């Protein structure tokens, strides 16, 4: 025996110190599979890997005790795959990672009470980040338990609807080191709780108070915070000009201000709010009433602005002129759904704001060739252009974009007049990462062949309802864009299995949407499932040729699948039950799947262990026994019942009418 061992070649890893192997492992972080393989090599690798791991994303709480034993050095625990996080789990985590735990995410979990929270807060003295968003059942008593985490710096409590001033008050007193707190949608929190946070936690840098019924009374102490950088006040109807007038001065350190949907703050209020805020760089006034003719007065003070969002505001030429005159250093401008945007205004802005990098002119229906011409002429460093549904922009203008803005990374030309020449021009932007061409009915795939030559970085491609696209185009994309992560080919009804087989070369593919592609079958899907192991989101609604075979291959290979839409597919109980072996599956939509019986659904539901949300037709509601519901709800699963009629018509909005080839 001993002789045998001596003859074996000695592994070079023996000579490497643990630190060096840790460094090597650091480089493997991108793909979770590689580290898994590494740990399976031998016992020492297994132990090294378990000591190296810093973050944990458990799937089932049943295995948690073994996980805790295996990984002693965990800093971050993410419960987003685990809808059920009971007190016992939190208590065992807090005792296992007493000194190492830095952050924990419970934003998708339920069933924990103040016992678990106080154990976390009390034992893990190093805890600095805690995400309790969506804890809609969290009460004041439980919130008070958080207050024991003295070193907490970041706390998210969005949609904690039961927490009132009392709970927030306890947190304010206990967690003095807080730098970030998000109280979005905590509708029971008022001025008193927020004011106490501002008075007690002097290190606050970021404060999200969206959708709260707060008034200027709590703004007074907030604006005196010396470190405050980010203040988000989306839809706070209680704050108005009158109240703001009573405040002495604005916050000097403020960098980001968001008063979107605050209808009671006009430019007068804004003026006093930003008084003294010389460092302000990001301003969002979307869907508010602050943008008027006098808006220029405010901009006069904000020459250092980097970003303005005016979505849905009534913008006039004078506003645009003011932006062009005063905000020369602007890098990001959003005029999405602004009704008063004209060629004149855009041209003025474009000439002044040569540093502009991101421009959003979605739904600016009045702009024409002249706007695009001036934008492309002066803003050559543009990296993001969103111009969905700019219907007056002609095809020739799109060509200009591709010719002049070579550094574009993100481009949204959904629902525009774009022809093949325009597409070819755009595809020359070699930095392109995301391209959205939805409902561009005139593009064909004769020019898509060039996509691989230039756009090798493309990760996201949206071809929603580009009905002229065929396998030729998709093949070219699949060959040319190996980094592709998301592709939407919904309602591209000429796409067949060939496309999917080619796309299976894109190993990074995570999201695939082939809704309403009748020519795609289980063969193509199986190819995707076998090769694209990373697949997490799949929509095969109305793919009438994908059956149980496809499901079985998904079940066998796509272990990362998280979300699936099976509506209208010819899948039976067998396919659905097969899917139940995918442990990460969380969201399912199963409407009008005629092959399914209530017993099949029942069995599948019980077999899925991590399910969080299921959309089912209302007719099943009466067929599923109450006891099953209680079991599912106990696991943390919620049901959404839909009562949609079965759709036979595949072209209800008349999308095909635009296409000449169908008319002929």
């Amino acid at each position, binding site marked *: 025996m001993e002789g045998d061992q001596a003859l074996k070649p000695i592994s070079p890893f023996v000579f490497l110190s643990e630190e060096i192997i840790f460094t090597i492992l650091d480089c493997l972080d991108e793909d979770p599979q590689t580290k898994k393989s590494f740990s399976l090599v031998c016992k020492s690798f297994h132990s090294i890997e378990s000591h190296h791991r810093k973050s944990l994303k458990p799937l089932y709480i049943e295995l948690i005790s073994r996980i805790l034993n295996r990984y002693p050095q965990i800093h971050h625990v993410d419960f987003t795959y685990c809808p059920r996080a009971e007190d016992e789990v939190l208590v065992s985590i807090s005792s296992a990672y007493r000194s190492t735990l830095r952050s924990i995410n419970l934003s998708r979990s339920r069933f924990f009470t103040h016992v678990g929270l106080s154990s976390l807060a009390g034992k893990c003295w190093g805890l600095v980040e805690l995400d309790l968003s969506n804890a809609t059942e969290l009460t004041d008593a439980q919130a008070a338990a958080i207050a024991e985490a003295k070193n907490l710096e970041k706390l998210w409590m969005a949609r904690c609807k039961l927490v009132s001033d009392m709970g927030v*008050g306890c947190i304010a007193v*206990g967690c003095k080191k807080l730098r970030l707190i998000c109280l979005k949608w905590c509708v029971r929190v008022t001025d008193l709780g927020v004011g106490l946070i501002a008075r007690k936690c002097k290190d606050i840098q970021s404060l999200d108070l969206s959708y709260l019924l707060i008034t200027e009374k709590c703004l007074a102490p907030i604006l005196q915070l010396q470190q405050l950088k980010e203040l988000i006040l989306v839809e706070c109807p209680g704050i108005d000009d009158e109240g703001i007038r009573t405040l002495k001065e604005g916050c000097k350190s403020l960098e980001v201000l968001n008063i979107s949907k605050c209808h009671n703050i006009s430019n007068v209020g804004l003026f006093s709010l930003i008084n003294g805020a010389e460092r302000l760089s990001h301003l969002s006034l979307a869907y508010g009433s602050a943008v008027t003719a006098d808006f220029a007065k405010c901009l006069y003070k904000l020459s250092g602005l980097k970003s303005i969002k005016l979505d849905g505001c009534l913008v006039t030429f004078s506003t645009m002129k003011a932006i062009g005159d005063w905000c020369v250093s602007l890098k990001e401008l959003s005029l999405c759904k602004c009704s008063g945007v004209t060629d004149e205004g855009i041209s003025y802005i474009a000439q002044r704001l040569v540093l502009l990098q991101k421009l959003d002119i979605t739904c600016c229906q009045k702009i024409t060739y002249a706007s695009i011409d001036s934008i492309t002429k002066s803003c050559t460093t543009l990296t993001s252009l969103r111009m969905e549904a700019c219907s007056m922009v002609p095809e020739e203008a799109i060509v200009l974009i591709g010719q002049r803005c070579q550094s574009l990374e993100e481009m949204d030309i959904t629902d525009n007049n774009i022809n093949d020449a325009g597409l070819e021009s755009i595809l020359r932007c070699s930095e392109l990462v995301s391209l959205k061409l939805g409902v561009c009915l005139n593009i064909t795939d004769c020019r898509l062949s060039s996509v691989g030559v230039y756009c090798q970085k493309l990760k996201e491609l949206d071809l929603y309802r580009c009905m002229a696209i065929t396998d030729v185009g998709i093949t070219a994309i699949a060959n040319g864009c190996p980094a592709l992560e998301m592709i939407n080919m919904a309602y591209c009804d000429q796409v067949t299995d060939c496309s999917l087989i080619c796309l299976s070369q894109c190993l990074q593919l995570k999201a695939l949407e082939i809704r309403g592609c009748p020519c795609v079958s289980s063969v193509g899907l199986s190819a995707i499932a076998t090769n694209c192991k990373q697949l997490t989101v799949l929509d095969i609604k109305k793919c009438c040729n994908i059956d149980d075979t496809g499901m079985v291959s998904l079940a066998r290979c796509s272990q990362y699948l998280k979300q699936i839409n099976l509506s209208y597919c010819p899948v039976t109980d067998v396919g659905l039950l097969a899917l139940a072996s995918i442990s990460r599956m969380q969201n399912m939509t199963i409407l009008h799947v005629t092959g399914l019986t209530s017993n099949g659904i029942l069995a599948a539901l019980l077999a899925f262990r991590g399910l969080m949300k299921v959309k089912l037709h209302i007719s099943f509601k009466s067929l599923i026994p109450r006891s099953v519901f209680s079991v599912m709800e106990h696991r943390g699963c919620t049901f959404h019942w839909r009562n949609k009629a079965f759709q036979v018509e595949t072209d209800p909005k008349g999308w095909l009418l635009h296409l000449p080839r169908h008319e002929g």
Partner: protein
Amino acid sequence: MDPEERLCAVTRTKPLNNQPFIGFSSQQKNWEDSSFLDYGMRIEPQISYFNPPTETQSSLASNFNNQAQITSQKSYQMNVACESNRIQDWDPRSTISSLSFLEKKIHQLRDLIHFINGQRGQFTGQSDELLVQQQMLITADLTSIIVQVMSTAGSLLPSVDHSPVANPSAGVSENIVLPENYAVNKVEDDHSRVANPSAGVSENIVLPENYAVNKVEDLTGYFGAEENYAVEDHELKSDDDADEGENLLPGSYEILQLEKEEILAPHTHFCTICGKGFKRDANLRMHMRGHGDEYKTPAALAKPNKESSSESILIKRYSCPYVGCKRNKDHKRFQPLKTILCMKNHYKRSHCDKTYMCSRCNAKKFSVLADLKTHEKHCGKDKWLCSCGTTFSRKDKLFGHIALFQGHSPAIPVDEAKASVGPSDRGQISEATTKIEPRDFNFKSNVIGSKRVWK
């Protein structure tokens, strides 16, 4: 220079209404010497209110004559100011009648002092007992005259509103004038309170030392209790019945101070026949009817008349007898109490044990019965609870309290916590409630630390 000589000299050279000022500037000296610090208005603190105390004190103590001169000069200046002011505010006819009354009395006073002076020379050879008897008689006369003079002069004082500190030089004259004013009040106070007016007042007048000494003993017996209070551990609680907004100029009002025993006495009116005590005068009169028909007459049953008009013109304010209290007249930033009831309530609330306990919550204690009754109306409705155990009927008050103190936090009511947690977690809750106590301890030390301004 002899005190009385000085007095005469000044009387000759200055207008008549100057007399009281000088009389009391010398009296001020007298107080310093005889150290009746507990008696009435000490001059020293009042002076330091305006000027650095060292300077004034040295001028007071070092040279008597010198000081007298300053006094006369400055009080003259002051007087001119007062005169001009008075013309605007007061009825000239009553002023003139008061002045002529004063003139008459001053003459009487001068004659009397001359007489004393003459007698002193004569009786040097006689027995001490006779001398003492005679001097007692004279003193009584003198006292009554001086009381009249002073009360009349007091009524002539300028009204509260004008501010004499306007120019810098006025500061000095103010030092002199103000003590005088206090003295006037004090005399009146004693006059009304002490059965024999002459006995109480005699100290304030410049008299041969032996009289003063007699009286000092007498008075220390009467007021002595005050000095025994320790100064260290007063709680400085602001009174809700306070008159914070009032900015009465020191000296522009009369200060009365009741004794602890008087404040705490359950009855203030006693039947002279059977000794039964009553809280109200009216009740005593009703009681008196039982002692005979002579108490049933309309005159006997009528409400006794108010004091003479000259006395009621001066605003009365009250001082707390507790030394070191902000409501005590010797406190640097003395804030007087408006009414006698305010004073009684203040004393009970701030310096007495809380003997009335709420029977409903068995937690809240009060020293004033009315406070308990007010609390009982709201007891049980206080749902906003702090970790220190304090309850509030309004949430904003609780949050104001928490914002003010370090380490306090809102306390979630136990029943709410129970309801949300379920039966298995009771142990945790009781743990949470027991945790309150150490915080409570912190709280108290904090209060003292943050609010104490003296010592």
